[in-house]
């Protein structure tokens, strides 16, 4: 009995931690690239985006996991997208009401969570095969990994392009900001170099 409980706990722990590094959705699985590039010009929008994705991911994983036995294979993807679209609408209305300024900054990238590959991937790979508890834990781990990745990229870009982090000035006034990092080109190049670095680190560890 004790050993059984132990394996379940370790399974939960492993599922939770997988999203952070080993199967990090952004750095390792290359999922959800659009928001990763679009909202990482500064830390605050990146954090908002990450938390919205966590909310949608957890809710849709719960619903998909609950209806996993009722799904017809050929209608599966459509049901996933409709579930996700419903929760994204909730998240979008919430942001519009409580943080209207942030909602304006994020613009169409909030509704674009609907087609974020991470959420569909987790619905397909995890929630449609496992029970609710595992699905929630998986969603939390993946969501945390996504948020973490977004915040790391955003911190790098905001620091170099404005000399500030979370809008707090860090570097002295003589620092000339590299504006290009807050532009689209900077987004691509930062992500490319960060991915290269992640590859380098994981190879050293192996």
């Amino acid at each position, binding site marked *: 009995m004790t050993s059984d409980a132990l394996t379940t706990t370790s399974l939960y722990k492993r599922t939770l931690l997988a999203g952070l590094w080993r199967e990090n959705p952004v750095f390792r699985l290359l999922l959800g690239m*659009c928001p990763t590039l679009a909202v990482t010009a500064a830390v605050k929008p990146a954090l908002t985006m990450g938390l919205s994705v966590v909310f949608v991911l957890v809710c849709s994983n719960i619903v998909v996991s609950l209806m996993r036995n009722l799904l017809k294979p050929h209608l599966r993807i459509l049901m996933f*997208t409709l579930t996700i679209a419903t929760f994204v609408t909730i998240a979008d209305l919430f942001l519009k009401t409580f943080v209207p300024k942030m909602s304006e900054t994020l*613009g169409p990238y909030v509704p674009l969570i*609907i087609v974020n590959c991470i959420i569909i991937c987790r619905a397909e790979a995890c929630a449609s095969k496992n029970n609710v508890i595992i699905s929630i834990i998986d969603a939390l781990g993946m969501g945390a990994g996504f948020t973490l990745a977004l915040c790391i990229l955003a911190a790098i870009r905001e620091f170099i392009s404005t000399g500030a982090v979370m809008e707090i000035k860090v570097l002295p006034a003589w620092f000339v900001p590299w504006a290009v990092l807050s532009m689209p080109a900077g987004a691509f*190049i930062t992500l*490319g170099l960060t991915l*290269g*670095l992640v590859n380098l680190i994981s190879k050293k560890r192996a």
Partner: protein
Amino acid sequence: MDTLNILLMAFISIVLVNNLVLTKFLGICPYLGVSGRIDMAFGMGLAVTFVVTLSGTMTWMIDHWILMPMNLEVTRYVCYILVIAGAVQLVEMYMRKFSPSLYESFGIFLPLITTNCAILGLCLFINLWGIDNLPEAAVLSFGAGIGFTMAICIMAGIRENLNMADVPKCLRGAPITLITAGLLTLAFMGFAGMIK
């Protein structure tokens, strides 16, 4: 003449200045995934152009003729995704029946287009920019497809040559593609002043 001018400007702006892939980061997954070979990239581009033209126009019509008069804007996202999924299904069925060879060559790309953010993104941008006439919405949708095809084909051309270059090991694959995309975006920033 004036209308024609506006439509032409809209087309140029969506293809070059506001290119969905390079400035709005939409459709990055196929941009990284299918840009290995030019012929595949071109096939993907054509499929996307077809679906985006259809769904961009249709979502505009649904938005303006059904949702807005009935004050149902809350259901907008759900409707959009249904239209896109429906359009993809329609294209798939039509092609399987009338041009099986083309259908074969598209293969897995067609169903994947449902989750291509370029399509949903364009529908959302048309809504956001407040486009209020049908021709402009249709031109923007078509132009978005052309812009996507152009970006993915350029990328495929570069990557075919990149295969022969000696890239550091840890940068091979996705990282070097992203860095290349960044340089390409820098080049496209030159178009930014063209349209106010």
